[in-house]
């Protein structure tokens, strides 16, 4: 799968990149919301994993933009330290497909990503 990761923390971004590549995915890394939206337009990823609190555009803005501008439904996983109920609900209402709170287990992320990979393979 081609996965776009949007995360402003460099160590976290590299960790995610390393893990997802090890799981056999093609990974596009972006450091902020604006860059993420640009890269989504260029690469049309099969899955987006995004943080919420990021410079320029937040993860929630990414969901809105992706849901408004793309006919093909790109699954979006939110990976955030924000666990407040209203934020989680807003993310799902905007169209997020999954929500993982930090601290997160990389093993759990692998399994959750695999679910979308399976769905992607079925629809492909």
């Amino acid at each position, binding site marked *: 799968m081609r996965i776009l990761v949007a995360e402003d*923390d*460099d*160590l976290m971004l590299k*960790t995610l990149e390393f893990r997802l590549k090890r799981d056999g995915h093609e990974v596009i890394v972006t450091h902020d919301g604006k860059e993420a939206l640009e890269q989504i337009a260029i690469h049309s990823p099969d899955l987006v994993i995004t943080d919420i609190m990021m410079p320029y555009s937040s993860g929630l803005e990414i969901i809105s933009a992706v849901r408004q501008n793309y006919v093909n439904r790109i699954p979006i996983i939110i990976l955030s*330290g924000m666990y407040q109920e209203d934020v989680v609900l807003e993310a799902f209402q905007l169209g997020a497909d999954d929500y993982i709170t930090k*601290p997160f287990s990389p093993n759990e992320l692998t399994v959750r990503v695999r679910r979308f990979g399976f769905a992607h393979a079925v629809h492909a």
Partner: protein
Amino acid sequence: MIRPYYFILAIFFFILVALSLIAFILIYMYLRNKSTKKQQKWTVMANLLIRKAIFFEEIEDDIPVTLRVQQSLKQTPFRKFLTNELLKAKKNVSGSAAENIKQLYLQLNLNQYALAGLKNRRWYLKAQAIQELSVMGLKEYLTKIYRFTNNANELVRMEAQIAIVNFYGFEGLRFLDVVSYPITEWQQIKLLQELLRISPDNFKGIEKWLKSPNKTVVVFALKLVRGYHRFELHDSVVGCLADADKQVKLQAIISLGEIYTAETSRLLIGQFLSAHPKHQLAIIKVLQNIATDDDIPFLLQQLDHENVEIKLFAARALANISAKGLESLMNHKQALQYPFIEIIAQVKNELAI
């Protein structure tokens, strides 16, 4: 006329100043560049090591640490930098990855520096050390940290209290039994936020905290009562209505709005006349949700209160009670006059939503 001697001297002085300035800028840029490069080198070293630790899978072995990292650890700035990076990583990952970060932290003996920080006289080093041990989840240092929960320094105390809750969840709140210093509003928010992550499992102690001589503990206990809907504590909360402390009384009123019984509205109405205006407003606000048909006469009386806010909330309470309450409001003698005409329109609008 300026003498040539002074003119040459001035030029010489100007050149000297310019050269000094250039030299200063060059040295500054060189040092900054050197520092940036060092920082970049450290970032790469730390990231590689942490990534290695996160994905380390050998259970019984030590995480391999390069000689370069081991030697760099002798330099305090690098050690501090790596510790911060480890803390950041630990906050972001869980499960075996988090355990590996903790293992690496212990393997590098970084806990020894944190322990030394606990003994340091400077409060910020103490607070930092507590936070470090807490994030790393080193429960073995719990007793050392626990004694700081009633430290004279506010920030040390805050970090220690959060650490204890972080380690032991609701059980960690037992520091409330003994804390004599105030728990600030900010600290209360932080503690409640920390508790949000944990399952409450019918925790004990609130009843005792409701009787604490430390009024901020009582206020915090009242917030716990309403946050976790501890209905069995209704009578103890009613007892707090008699407290001389204004904040305690206010929080008791608000909490009763969350754990009310059939008697609560009557009890609050009984307090209304002698209450402070701030408490009167709180009572009326609570009555919006808990008043019954029996309270309609009292609420109708409050429509004549001099405070417009109380008028508004009384009207809202009437409208929320039942059709009978709304009817009484509409039939009020001044229903067609200002401000009631606007209040009723607003309340009806809210009902429609």
